[in-house]
């Protein structure tokens, strides 16, 4: 018999509610009935894993496509994936996607009147190393307008998707840039009550990954849920 521990709930105020009225799209899409709390079972404490063989070549370099170089400011975005107990999360898949330097997504729904860049990949993927580290070479994304309210502009951001070891640890988030004047006005960034939590979505300029005459470095660590100290009292059948 093995006893397994569940995953910790979030610290109050650090995660958004589904309904966040200033983010207009949440109004018709957030559930209106209370969520039904369930205990952790084997279903939630297990989850998919992926090996490096699924990664296309150069999947962590977004700056070259079709034999040409993307336009914009080259940046290295790197960091570590840790759990709440500061333990590295190794061998886990990270996916990113973003607008190009002009603030335009290579997507049929994006009608923003800004140029597409045929040499910008727009998305990347990687798998963390044994210490939970990851690294992407990309272009600093542009800010872009959106329809949430009059004269609404999203601060520059990179979308992150990460799996972690379990169904319970799956996380999708966005990374922002220090000093962006649009942050204060963005209903998505400002979705949590806890100001410190939201400020952790802002990457940190990093000399260590800044390369002379080539690119600036930004550091962004991702924290996934940690295990409960006590087992969930759920015995696995033999």
């Amino acid at each position, binding site marked *: 018999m093995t006893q397994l521990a569940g995953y*910790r709930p*979030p*610290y109050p105020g650090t*995660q*958004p509610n*589904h309904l*966040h009225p200033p*983010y207009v*799209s*949440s109004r*018709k*899409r*957030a*559930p*209106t*009935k209370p*969520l*039904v709390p*369930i*205990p*952790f*079972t*084997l*279903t939630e*404490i*297990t*989850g*998919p*894993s992926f090996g490096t063989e*699924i990664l296309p070549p150069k999947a962590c370099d977004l700056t070259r496509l079709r034999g040409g170089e993307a336009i914009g400011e080259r940046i290295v975005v790197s960091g570590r994936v840790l*759990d*709440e107990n*500061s333990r590295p999360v190794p061998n886990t898949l990270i*996916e*990113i*996607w973003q607008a190009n330097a002009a603030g335009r997504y290579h*997507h049929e*729904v994006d009608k923003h009147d800004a140029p597409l860049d045929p040499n910008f990949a*727009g*998305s990347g*993927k990687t798998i963390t190393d044994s210490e939970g580290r990851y690294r992407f070479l990309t272009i600093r994304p542009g800010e872009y307008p959106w329809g949430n309210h009059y004269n609404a502009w999203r601060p520059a951001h990179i*979308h992150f*998707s990460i799996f972690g070891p*379990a169904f*319970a640890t*799956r996380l*999708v*988030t*966005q990374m922002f840039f220090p000093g962006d004047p649009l942050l204060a006005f963005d209903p*998505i960034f400002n*979705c*949590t009550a806890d100001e410190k*939590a939201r400020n952790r979505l802002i990457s940190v300029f990093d000399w260590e990954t800044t390369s002379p005459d080539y690119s600036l470095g930004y550091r962004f660590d991702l924290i*996934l849920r*940690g295990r409960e100290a006590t087992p969930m*009292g*759920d015995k*696995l*059948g*033999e």
Partner: protein
Amino acid sequence: MSLQTTTSQTVGPYFGIGMTWLIRDNLIGEGVSGDRFTIQGRVFDGDGLPVPDAILEIWQANAHGKYDHPEDTQRKLLEPGFKGYGRVLVSHEGMFRFVTIKPGSVPGPKGKEQAPHLAISIFMRGLLKRLVTRMYFPDDPRNADDPILTLVEPERRSTLIARKTAGGAGTLEWNVLLQGPDETVFFDVGL
């Protein structure tokens, strides 16, 4: 002082750029055992309109009730052709479809067996964090005392059970209603 989990943010409308490459709408690899099903459905918003920009992820055990994960230490067979992970994007009409096998039952709280089920995460523009739900299979007697289904008020349990269709025994329909009187049951797993 421990660290705190990174704040969740929406996938936004353009997640297809980053997530289409890993579509897994057929979970059945070579040599996989179990009853095969095509599962299809639609996602609707609070106005009853189809949601054209959502992504569903599926996690499930194999036909023996074994998860392909190191923490599943049950003495049950793993099948190399079955990973248990699925990912589908909805169409412009909010439709999704995937092919998989009916999983075996897996243990639940206090060693009580759970009825066969798929764990589902749903991401979309408008959702600052994912929705978590489950899909159960129709006409399975184990549904009646499944330890998770029975936590749901009886009138709402049907939102979690797929329906048989005119398309034949191998095709099931399961819709996701984000709001309204027949709103799908979503679970709180501490996100």
